[in-house]
């Protein structure tokens, strides 16, 4: 070979130490002994090793899940401190975090197909809308064959399956196309559905406005269907709440309970997609993105792989839509089948890191974080300024305009403007998004590499 080893990028391989899970570092004396033993013992050891490996690989996941899990009580705590008003401006409230979860799931499902196979699904809202409308229509008894009392978990599954079927149908014709043509035909399908749902009188007397679930219908239960003790109701006003759960003294209101319940579904969905992405199948998806012609030439029936990936993506998009409908109990064409719903997923996926799966969730978190600060609601920055700045300052003129007007015009409800700016900056300067950039820095997925870096960091300090 013409290239000698020293010319190779030196850090490409040096990551080995951190890459290898500790279980393989020979710390486990028993495994050596048992290696020569009988098959079953060997199996057990392998199983144990693989369990350990799984655990260690998921340390970052666990940390994120714990952080997310601690957020609601932490939020409650922080906003009751003397700096509470300031915290309230900056931190997204728990109910917003529920939206982060389900929209995040939707964005992940979008990333799953678009970020990994490279096929931009511009009509992804079609699947989200399917899941959402299925829940509302079923709950209001408007779907023949589905009683109004169908368990929510069942609806999640049904919505997912229905959307997967639709994805197969749409995909069958669309995957003969590539690039922009694919994006446009899926957009076309979604727009046709959008116009349809806007005019479908069966939905409600006013389909343009969508449909709601009245207070007479009880909360949707997430958990084990039929087992009350293992299910909780979601929804802000109708859901379950617990005062002083397990004697902790912490109050779990409806939004918090919904947060955990929805979070559990999102977590399971994420792991399912994450597994697929890291499976041999996932590698084929990437190969399709990289060079579909060659992927076909080495023996993959890419059409079928794309179809299945699309169906899976559609499934989880619908689950996200169903969670949305279940939590909010209202759906409308503009919040489900609309192009801008897909655009939200796109924004989230890009800001979080395209083709990183988990990044989409962080991307949407960022979106909501910004939106929250610029919101017109009581925790918004403009409200805070109006209420906390001294009146003479508010009336002081900036270039001939009272500051108050500047606040009202340039801050109050202007999230779009700043989101657009931030987005442009991201595309220009952080093209790999939040998670993608982190991965680049540490040389691999956060789950695999972050612990090593952290350890190294502390070792170096010592």
């Amino acid at each position: 070979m013409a290239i000698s080893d020293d010319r190779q990028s030196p850090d490409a391989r040096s990551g080995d130490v951190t890459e290898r899970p500790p279980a393989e570092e020979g710390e486990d004396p028993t495994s050596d002994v048992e290696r020569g033993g009988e098959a079953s013992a060997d199996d057990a050891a392998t199983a144990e090793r693989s369990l350990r490996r799984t655990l260690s690989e998921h340390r970052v996941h666990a940390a994120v899940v714990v952080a997310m899990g601690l957020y609601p009580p932490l939020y409650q705590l922080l906003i009751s401190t003397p700096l509470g008003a300031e915290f309230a401006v900056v931190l997204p409230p728990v109910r917003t975090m529920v939206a982060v979860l389900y929209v995040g799931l939707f964005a992940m499902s979008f990333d799953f197909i678009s970020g990994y196979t490279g096929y931009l699904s511009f009509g992804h809202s079609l699947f989200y809308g399917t899941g959402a409308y299925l829940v509302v229509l079923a709950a209001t008894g408007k779907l023949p064959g589905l009683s109004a009392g169908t368990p929510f978990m069942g609806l999640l599954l049904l919505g997912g399956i229905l959307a997967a079927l639709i994805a197969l149908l749409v995909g069958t014709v669309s995957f003969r196309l590539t690039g922009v043509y694919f994006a446009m035909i899926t957009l076309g399908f979604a727009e046709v559905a959008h116009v349809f749902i806007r005019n479908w009188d069966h939905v409600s007397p006013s389909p343009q406005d969508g449909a709601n679930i009245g207070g007479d219908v009880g909360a949707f239960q997430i958990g084990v269907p039929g087992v009350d003790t293992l299910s909780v109701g979601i929804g802000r006003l109708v859901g379950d709440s617990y005062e002083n759960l397990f004697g902790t003294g912490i109050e779990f209101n409806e939004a918090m309970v919904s947060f955990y319940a929805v979070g559990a579904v999102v977590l399971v969905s994420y792991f399912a997609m994450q597994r697929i992405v890291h499976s041999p199948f996932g590698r084929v998806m990437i190969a399709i993105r990289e060079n579909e012609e060659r992927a076909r030439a080495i023996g993959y029936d890419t059409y079928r792989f794309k179809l299945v990936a699309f169906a899976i993506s559609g499934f989880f998009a619908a689950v996200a839509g169903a969670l949305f409908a279940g939590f909010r109990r209202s759906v409308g064409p503009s919040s489900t089948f609309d192009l801008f719903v897909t655009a939200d997923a796109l924004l989230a996926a890009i800001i979080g890191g395209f083709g990183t799966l988990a990044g989409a969730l962080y991307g949407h978190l960022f979106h909501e974080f910004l939106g929250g600060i610029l919101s017109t609601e009581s925790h918004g920055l403009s409200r805070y300024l109006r209420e906390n700045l001294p009146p003479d300052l508010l009336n002081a003129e900036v270039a001939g305009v009272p500051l108050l007007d500047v606040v009202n015009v340039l801050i109050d409800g202007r999230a779009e403007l700043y989101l657009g700016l931030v987005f442009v900056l991201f595309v220009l300067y952080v093209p790999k998004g939040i998670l993608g950039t982190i991965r680049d820095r540490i040389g691999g997925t956060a789950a695999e590499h972050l612990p090593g870096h952290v350890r190294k960091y502390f070792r170096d300090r010592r």
Partner: protein
Amino acid sequence: MTGIEPALLAAGDAGPVVASLLSDLLDVGTLVGIVLGALSKAALYVLIAAGLSLIFGLMGVLNFAHGSFTMLGAYLGGAVMVVLVSSGTGPYARIALFFLAMAAVFGVMTAFGSAVEKRLIRPIYDRQPLFQILLTFGVVLVLDELVRIVVEVRGMQPRSDWQEALGTAPGFLQNTITVAGSTTRGLYMFEVLIGAMVVAVTWGFLTRTRYGLYIRAGSEDSEMAQALGIDIRKAFSVVFGVGSGLAAVAGVMLMWDPRFGASVPLSTDALLIAFVVVIIGGLGTFRGTVVAGLLVGLFDAVTTWLFHSAYVDFAGLPEMVMFLALVLVLIVKPQGLFGVEEVGGH
């Protein structure tokens, strides 16, 4: 679900309905009306799509901000008209001012488009095409919100088109006229004229200059084109600028058209129309865009007629038909009517 199924309102079986539909349709007045409608729609669609087709066809950049440029053009054109036109301005003076506004807006927006290209898009040519889409999408968010702020602060037009700008159109264009037994507006015929003009100019730009060739080469392999001595950056700026200028020219026309009018949502409407037309025509072919514009215009005119004459009681039909046409064309011809394989690396 009366709204959805093309509810044929006429009573009885399908036979008589179809018969009466056909006899209605074959009426000379009706046919003329449909053809006029189709032409005027087609002219607008081509007008709206021309700039996108140019940028997309040559550079392979899917400009999501196209609709916003059109919207800006509508407001800028409207502003010029509102400022210059007084109640006493006669019809011909208004037409003259209109062309003046068009020229001014074309100039301003060409410069603006070039600036956007230089500052924002140029740094990311070597990335996947997705990133240009995303970047222009970010531009949309910012531009639309900025315009919204101005419109709100000035209290120009809550939830409706900009009436003042609409009002600057001379009376003879605003009034309905009768052509061979069917009514239309003078304005719509004027639009056909403008549409034809823009097609001619764009055609000339593509065939009379080497820009078309340079850009097609450059979008495929810009390093190679540069190494052949082509100032590809300048060429890209010029084409992006001209495409943006064309988008804005469409906006100036739309500002007079009550079916569109200057408004913030025009941004999305124009974008979707432009997408559909350009994609149906096929990427990289301006001829395809023109033909697709005519085709969609015809679809639109026929379905509008069906709706107006109560054969179909579904107001969303023309809009739905546009997307159905997109889906169907792509199923039959995966690269659009005249499309070649996808253009370039951008």
